């Protein structure tokens, strides 16, 4: 099998010396006196079972059937990510923040939920949203900046992608708290990145969740980069999972490119929340091998040296090696799987293509349940302009 574009996405380029020195700080080792929490890892980057001692001995390796299912989830969202690039270049997609290389972190977490649970994704988390169940056609429409992408499905409890950073954290606490007050066992999961963990709302959300014992699972995807700023320049902290300690909330750390570990840890945190035992923060240690968005040029801020190595940690190839070696996956089975995934995607894009263009009057729709006199007048104004 040839390499996918994700695996060869590391950027080429040279930086001015000062920028390179600053950016190289991402490669610095952990600061002295700041012990890192050990990461759970079941599958090594070489695709073998990690025989070492695990930091969370109670978290079990998923069974083979689940492993294969998780592999499919990763393949499915990788397909979307790669096709989104192509569509963008063809002018059939808006500016899209890719997540290629982070599929284990996104599919492994969202797969631990049911659609009775809440998902609060950020703009980076299209993969998590698709895994949770957001329809592909709608997702395409969203990233085409069509209002058809805004009609969130009534039967899902997924919010739109969060653009302002970290605001979803206290909101997830509210949704989770509402579930608890209603006596359900449903939980809320919210995503954030390493950069987002600098925002006040991240900290307020964690503290509220702890203080109110809200059934939340907070996913902190540490992908090393907040647009152009490496984590080492973002914060002096070297282990973001430990941020939870300050709020009396457990903070766990997992190899974010090992979906079996990500899924198992998340599942445990979800069960813990369902059981009324409170929130958990999970840091998935991964890497943004791709640019910030399809319109971003990472050669302005990072070198090949800084991305080197992450292509070999690819979450899809890693599990593939393991599953093939175990006999859980066959080449033929994989080919059929990829055909199905491709067909599903093409059908959804065709459905998205068929969606009608919006009319200007839709700008002022859905502001209030009943339009105000002002909005009614403004709608008439737009329609008059539109028909002129």
């Amino acid at each position, binding site marked *: 099998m040839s390499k996918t574009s994700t695996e060869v996405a590391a950027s080429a380029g040279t930086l001015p010396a000062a920028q390179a020195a600053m950016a190289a700080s991402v490669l610095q080792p952990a600061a002295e006196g700041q012990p890192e929490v050990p990461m759970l890892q079941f599958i090594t980057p070489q695709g073998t079972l990690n025989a070492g001692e695990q930091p969370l001995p109670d978290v079990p390796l998923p069974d083979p059937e689940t492993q294969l299912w998780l592999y499919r989830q990763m393949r499915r969202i990788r397909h979307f990510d790669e096709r989104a690039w192509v569509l963008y270049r063809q002018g059939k997609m808006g500016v899209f923040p890719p997540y290629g290389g982070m599929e284990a972190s996104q599919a492994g977490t969202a797969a631990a939920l049911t659609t009775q649970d809440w998902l609060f994704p950020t703009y980076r988390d299209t993969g998590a949203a698709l895994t949770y169940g957001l329809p592909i056609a709608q997702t395409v429409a969203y990233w085409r900046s069509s209002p058809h992408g805004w009609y969130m499905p*009534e039967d899902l409890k997924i919010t739109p992608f969060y653009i302002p950073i970290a*605001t979803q954290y*206290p*909101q997830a606490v*509210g949704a989770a708290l509402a579930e608890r007050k209603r006596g359900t066992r449903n939980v809320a999961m919210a995503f954030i990145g390493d950069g987002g963990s600098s925002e006040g*709302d991240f900290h*307020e959300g964690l503290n509220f969740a702890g203080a109110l014992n809200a059934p939340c699972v907070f996913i902190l995807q540490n992908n090393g980069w907040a647009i152009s700023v490496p984590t080492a320049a973002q914060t002096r902290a070297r282990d973001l999972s430990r941020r939870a300690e300050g709020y009396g909330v457990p903070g766990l750390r997992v190899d974010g490119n090992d979906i079996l570990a990500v899924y198992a840890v998340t599942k445990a945190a979800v069960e813990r929340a369902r059981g009324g035992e409170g929130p958990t923060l999970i840091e998935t240690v991964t890497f943004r091998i791709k640019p910030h968005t399809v319109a971003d040029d990472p050669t302005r801020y990072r070198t090949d040296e800084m991305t080197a190595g992450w292509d070999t940690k690819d979450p899809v190839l890693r599990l593939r090696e393991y599953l093939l070696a175990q006999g859980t996956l066959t080449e033929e089975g994989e080919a059929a799987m990829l055909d199905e995934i491709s067909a599903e995607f093409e059908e959804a894009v065709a459905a998205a293509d068929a969606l009608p263009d919006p009319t200007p009057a839709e700008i002022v729709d859905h502001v*209030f349940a009943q339009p105000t006199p002002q909005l009614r007048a403004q709608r008439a104004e737009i329609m008059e302009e539109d028909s002129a």
Partner: protein
Amino acid sequence: MTAVGDKKQTLAAAPQRDASKPITMVAAINEALDMALTRDPDVYIFGEDVGVMGGVFRATDGLQARHGVERVFDTPLAEAGIMGLGIGMGLAGLKPVAEMQFAGFLYPALDQIMSHLGRYRHRTRSRFTLPVVVRAPYGGGVHTPEQHADSPEAVIAHVPGVKVVIPSNPQDAKGLLLAAIADPDPVFFFESIKMYRSLKAEVDPGYYTVPIGQARIHRAGDDLTIICYGGMVEVCDRAAEAAAGAGISAEIIDLRTISPLDTATVLESVRKTGRAVIVTEAPRTAGFHSEVAAVIAEEAIDSLLAPVVRVTGFDAPYPPFTAIEDSYRPTPTRVAKAIRRVMEY
């Protein structure tokens, strides 16, 4: 933790009140909150010190004792967190009533308000709606410490998708707050600190609502229209009373809701009188008074006999200095001066 069983007991303990006995605005607000908690199990009240303490102004006094700590609860001290919590609870279909301890303390929550509170219905095409009420004491006149007397209503009125209600008296406060809680969309409810206890009025002890988006003719008149809301209604009333002594008949419109603005009531009055004075205690530049002036200029210029005049606070932070604080907030004297200006033009 209070279980469902406790609720029945607490409902039985709800206080009875003599309807003919006047009550303060803060008592009317407390009564509305109590009633909303009793009528609708989805109503939750939370904020800083709203629980055992009953709020710094006692607006939630006794509510936790009557309705339990599940329904009325203290949060950590973080306004963005409080607003985010309310949005999340609203997403899940509850009816959160959040308290910002002072309007001047709501600024950390502006990201939540501007990015999400007013936007959720729009960006989910009504899949998710936010029946959220945010209460915030605002304004000066009672010698609070620094930063406790801000009037940021124009900031919130500028946010699409959020309604802004500001009562001026106990009867309206109760009915408007019950309407806000029943409203399917976010409502900001600013409560004049000065008016909390400065007047008492008879208030219907039953459940009733005052429609959001409808102004009230507080005082009928023919010569000029004074447009105001919240803590300024009482001030304008005194100015109008003095003007009446000089033979000038002032009509006072208490807006009650500033967003959406009841333009019909404002314009009808201004077309009748030909003169408009707009009074708020917020800073002058880009205040809500300016929006009212713009609407009058756009829609009723042919009726105007004089320039539209604003009487407002100044373009400086509200001063906490006891000796001179009263020079910031509009007084009946300053309103009277504006009345003379439009009458003598």
